[in-house]
C-alpha cells in the first residue's frame, strides 16, 4: 500500500519524512526505540519504588503508565505514516549485538514494517484505554500498583515481541507476556481458584514455549543467526523463505506448537476459561485482545516459512478448525458471562489460525484487530451486563424477546442431548489430559519423591536406631 504522490506534498510532515532514505530510516529507528523504551521505562519508574517499599500514588501510577502507552501509540502512528510514504518497505533497526560466542550472535534487531507497526499502534492504543479504565476500576484495590507494574511489563513484552527483528528478541518478549499473564491470572492471590488457574496457564505456556525455544535454535542452525532478515526476504505479506523446505517445515511446526499454548488451541485450551479469575481489565486485554493473539502474530510474522511448509499449514488449519468447533460447542453451555466470552475468544482464535494456515494473512490481521477490539469491549462491559439488561428491559417495558434460534435444533433430540453432554464436559479434553497424562505422571513423581525421603531417612539413621525403631513399631503394632 502506498500513498498517492499527490497527497504527499499536501502533507508537510510526510513530505519531510519522504525527503531522503537515510533521514527517514533514522527517524523510524528513533520512533521504534521510543515505542519500546516508553513502556519499559515505566516498568522501572513504577516497579522500582514499589520494590523499595515506596510505591507511587494511584494518580501518578496511572498517569505515568497511560503517558507511556500514549507516547508509544503516537510514535507508532508516526512510524506508520513514514512507512506508508515508502510503500511499507521493512526498516531494520539494529541496536547492537547483545553477546557473541563463537559464531553464535545474539543481536538486538527490531523491524518496522506493514505488520509490526499497525500491530504496535493497535496494542499500545488498547493498553492506554485499558489503563484509563483500570485506574477507576481498581481504585483502592490492595494490588493497584502491582496491576500497573504487570501492565507495563506486558506492554514492554508485547512491543518487544511485535517489533522483534530476530527470534531472540521475540522470545524475550514472549516470555514477558507469559509471566505477566500468569501473575495477573493469580492477581487475587487469596483465592485458591485463582492460584490453580495461574499455575495451569503457566504450565501450558512453559510446555509450549519449548516449541519457540527449539525453533530459535533451529533458526540459528539454519542461517547462523536469529535475524529474520536472513530467514525470509521481501515485504510482508509477500515475503519469501530463504531456508530449505525441510528447515522451514521443522521451524514452522515448532512455531505452531508454541503458538497453540498462548492462543489456547486444542488440546491446550482449558487454561483460558479459568484465566478469567484475574481482574476484568486484564482479562479484556490479555484473553480478549492481545495475549490470545500472540501465537497468531508469531505465525503471521513467519508466514514466509509457512508458505514453504504445506504440512505445517495443514496442521495449522486442522488445529484451528478443531479449536473453533470445540470452543463454539462448549461456549454455548457456559453459565457465566466471562467463561462464555472466553470460549467466544477461543472460537475466533481458532478461525484466525485456520485463516493463517489457508494463507489469508491480511484477512487474519484484520480479523485479529477487529475481534480484539470487540471482545475487549465486551469483557470490560461484562461486570455491568446485568445492569445493562435491566436498563434494556426497563426501556422496553418487558423481556426483550425470545431466545435466538439455533442450528443445533435441526438435530435429533438424542444427538442434541449427546452434544450437550459433550459440551458440559468441555469436549472431554480436560478429563483425557488429567486421567491419562497429568495424573499418572504426577503420581509417579510423587512416588519418586516419597521414595527419596525414605532413602534419606534410612541412610541418615544409625543401624542401631533403625533396629530400635523397627522393634518399637512392631510392639506398637502388636499392642494395637
Amino acid at each position, binding site marked *: 500500500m502506498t500513498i498517492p504522490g499527490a497527497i504527499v506534498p499536501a502533507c508537510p510532515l510526510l513530505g519531510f519524512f519522504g525527503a531522503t*532514505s*537515510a533521514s527517514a*530510516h533514522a527517524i*523510524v*529507528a*528513533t520512533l521504534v526505540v521510543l515505542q519500546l523504551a516508553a513502556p519499559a521505562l515505566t516498568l522501572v519508574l513504577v516497579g522500582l519504588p514499589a*520494590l523499595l*517499599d515506596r510505591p507511587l500514588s494511584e494518580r501518578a501510577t496511572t498517569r505515568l503508565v497511560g503517558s507511556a502507552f500514549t507516547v508509544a501509540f503516537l510514535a507508532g502512528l508516526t512510524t506508520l505514516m513514514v512507512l506508508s510514504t515508502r510503500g511499507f518497505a*521493512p*526498516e*531494520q*533497526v*539494529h*541496536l*547492537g*549485538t*547483545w*553477546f*557473541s*560466542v*563463537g559464531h*553464535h*550472535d545474539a*543481536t*538486538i*534487531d527490531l523491524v518496522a514494517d506493514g505488520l509490526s507497526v499497525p500491530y504496535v499502534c493497535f496494542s499500545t492504543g488498547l493498553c492506554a484505554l485499558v489503563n484509563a479504565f483500570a485506574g477507576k476500576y481498581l481504585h483502592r484495590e*490492595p494490588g493497584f500498583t502491582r496491576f500497573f507494574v504487570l501492565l507495563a511489563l506486558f506492554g514492554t513484552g508485547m512491543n518487544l515481541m511485535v517489533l522483534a527483528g530476530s527470534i531472540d528478541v521475540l522470545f*524475550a*518478549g514472549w*516470555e514477558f507476556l507469559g*509471566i505477566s499473564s500468569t*501473575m495477573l491470572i493469580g492477581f487475587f*492471590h*487469596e483465592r*485458591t481458584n*485463582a*492460584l490453580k488457574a*495461574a*499455575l495451569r496457564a503457566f*504450565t501450558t505456556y512453559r510446555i509450549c514455549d*519449548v516449541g519457540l*525455544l*527449539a525453533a530459535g*535454535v533451529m533458526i*540459528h*542452525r539454519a542461517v*547462523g543467526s536469529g535475524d529474520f*532478515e*536472513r530467514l525470509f*526476504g521481501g515485504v510482508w505479506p509477500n515475503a519469501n523463505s*530463504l531456508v530449505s523446505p525441510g528447515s522451514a517445515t521443522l521451524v514452522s511446526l515448532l512455531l505452531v506448537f508454541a503458538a497453540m499454548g498462548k492462543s489456547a488451541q486444542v488440546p491446550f485450551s482449558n487454561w483460558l476459561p479459568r484465566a478469567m479469575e484475574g481482574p476484568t481489565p486484564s482479562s479484556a486485554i490479555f484473553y480478549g485482545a492481545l495475549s490470545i493473539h500472540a501465537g497468531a502474530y508469531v505465525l503471521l510474522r513467519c508466514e514466509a516459512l509457512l508458505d514453504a511448509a504445506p504440512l505445517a499449514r495443514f496442521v495449522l488449519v486442522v488445529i484451528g478448525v478443531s479449536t473453533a468447533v470445540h470452543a463454539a460447542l462448549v461456549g454455548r453451555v457456559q453459565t457465566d458471562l466471562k467463561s462464555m466470552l472466553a470460549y467466544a475468544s477461543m472460537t475466533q482464535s481458532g478461525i484466525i489460525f485456520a485463516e493463517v494456515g489457508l494463507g489469508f494473512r491480511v484477512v487474519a490481521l484484520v480479523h485479529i484487530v477487529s475481534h480484539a477490539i470487540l471482545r475487549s469491549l465486551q469483557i470490560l462491559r461484562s461486570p455491568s451486563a446485568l445492569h445493562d439488561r435491566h436498563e434494556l428491559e426497563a426501556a422496553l417495558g418487558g423481556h426483550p424477546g425470545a431466545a435466538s434460534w439455533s442450528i443445533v435444533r435441526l438435530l435429533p433430540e438424542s444427538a442434541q442431548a449427546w452434544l450437550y453432554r459433550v459440551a458440559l464436559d468441555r469436549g472431554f479434553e480436560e478429563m483425557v489430559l488429567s486421567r491419562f497424562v497429568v495424573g499418572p505422571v504426577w503420581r509417579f*513423581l*510423587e512416588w*519418586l*519423591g516419597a521414595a*527419596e525421603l525414605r532413602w*534419606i531417612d534410612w*541412610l*541418615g*539413621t544409625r543401624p542401631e536406631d533403625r533396629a530400635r525403631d523397627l522393634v518399637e513399631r512392631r510392639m506398637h503394632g502388636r499392642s494395637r
Partner: protein
Amino acid sequence: MLDGHEIPLVAALTAAIAAPLAAAFHVGRGGSQAGPRTPAIVSLLVSLVASLTITRAWMSGSEVTLELGQRLGGGYLVHVDGLTAVLLPFVALVELAIVMMAPKRFLDGPATARILLGAATTLALFSTAHPLVLIVAWVVTALPTWWSTRATPGGQIAARVYAIIMTMAVASMTVGTLMMIADPPWEAGGGAVGACGGWLVALAVLVRKGIVPFHSWYPALFRGAPMSTALAATVPQIASYTAVRLFFGHADHGDGVGEELILLSQLALLTATYGAALALVQRDLRGLIGTLAMSQSALVLAGLAGKLPMELNGAFCTWISSGLALTGLGLVGWALESRAGPLSLETPQGRFADAPLLAAFFLLFGLATIGLPGTLSFVADDLLVSGSLDEQLHAGLLVIAATVLSAIAVMRAWLMVFGGPSSVDGPRHHVLPRERITLTALFATIVLLGLWPAPLVRELERAGSELLGVPFEAPAPVGHGVDHGRGAAGPPGDPSAAAP
C-alpha cells in the same frame, strides 16, 4: 620472582583469602564486642573488593594466566586465569550476601567463624590447580558444613547423610588424585593406573556434585542444615572447579576434554531433569530449593563437557547465574522462615499479605533462576540450549526439559507460599534495611550481568578457549547504539550487514 604485573594480583589474592580467614579466628575467639556480623561483613567486603581487583587486573592487563609455586599433577599452587578471575568475586558476593541476610539467632560466634572459614577455603580452592591442595580444600570445606549441620536441631539425619557421602567423595578423590600423580594420564604414555585414578576422581566429582545416584545429600542438606550452610556448601560448586582443573587439557583427547567428563555430563543431564522433576512434587520450600539447586548444579556439569565454546560458556554462565539466583531465593526463603516458621508447599500459605516485599523478591529470584529475559540466566540458558542442541539432540532436549520443569516448580512454589487466604490479624513483616540492601544488590547484579553480558561472556569464552586449548577469536566490538546506516536498502541475508 614475581613480574611487575603479578605483584598486585598476588597481593589482592592474599587479601581476598586472608581477610575472611583472619575474621574467622577473630570472631571464633569471641573477640568482637559489636557481635560477629560486623567483622564478618567487613572482611567479606575486603574480600569482594580484592577479588574485583583481580578481575579488573586480569581483564585489563596482559590477560596471561598467573601460575606460581610448584607444579604437580598438571597444576600450579597458585593458578589465576579467566575462570578464577570471575569465580572469586562470585564466591565473595555470595558469602557476603549470606552473612548480611542471616537471621541474628543463626549468627553466633562459632557459626560465623564456620562461614568465614568456608569462604576463605573456597576462595583459596578457586585460585589453585594443585591436586593435593584441592584435596585438602575439599576436606576443609566439607568439615564446617558437617559441623554446622550436626549442631542444628533436627539436622542429625542430614549430617549423617552428608558425612557418608563426603567420606566417599574425599576418599575417592584422594586415591584417584594420587594415582593420577603417580601415572599422569595427561602425559604421553600414561598408563592404566593414571586412567583408573581419573575415573576415581570422576566418581568423587559425581558424588560431591550430587549427580544421580549420589544426589540425596543435596535435598537432605537443605532440609537439615541452616540455609547459610546449605548455600555455602552447594552454590560455589567446588566439584565443578575440580573437574575443570583436572579433566581439561588431557593430551590423550583431541578436543581437550577428558573422557571422564563426557560420561559425567551424560549423568548430569539426567540429574538436571530428574532434579527439576522432583522439585515439582516437593512438599516444603527447603526441599524445593534443594532439588532445584541439584538440577542447576547438574546443568553446569552437563555443559562443561561441551566441545563447543558456546556450551562451555553456557555452563560457566549457568554457574554464576544460578548461583546468584539460588542464593537470593534461598535467602528470601530463610528470611520468611525465620518470621513465619517452616513453609509447606502442600497448601497455600497466604504469606503475601504478611511480606509483600519478600514475595516480590522471591518471584524475581525464582524467575532469575529459570531464564527470565533481562537476567543472566536468560543468556546462560540460550547458550546452554543452543550449544547442547548443536552437539547432541538428546542433550538439548534434556536441558530444555529441565528448564521447563524448574520453571513450573518455581511458579508453583511462589503461588503456594504467597497465595491463599492470609490471617486477618497477622503481623506484616517488615524487611530490615540490611536485608533490602542485600537482596536489591544481588538482584541488581543478576540484571546488570543479564542486560550487559558481553564482557562476562567474552572473558568466559577466553577462559574456555584456553582450557580447551583452542585459539580464542575475539568477537567484533559490541555496540548498543542505533544503527542509522541500514535500512530497506540493506541486502537481506548479508551477514556483514548484521555487524554493528
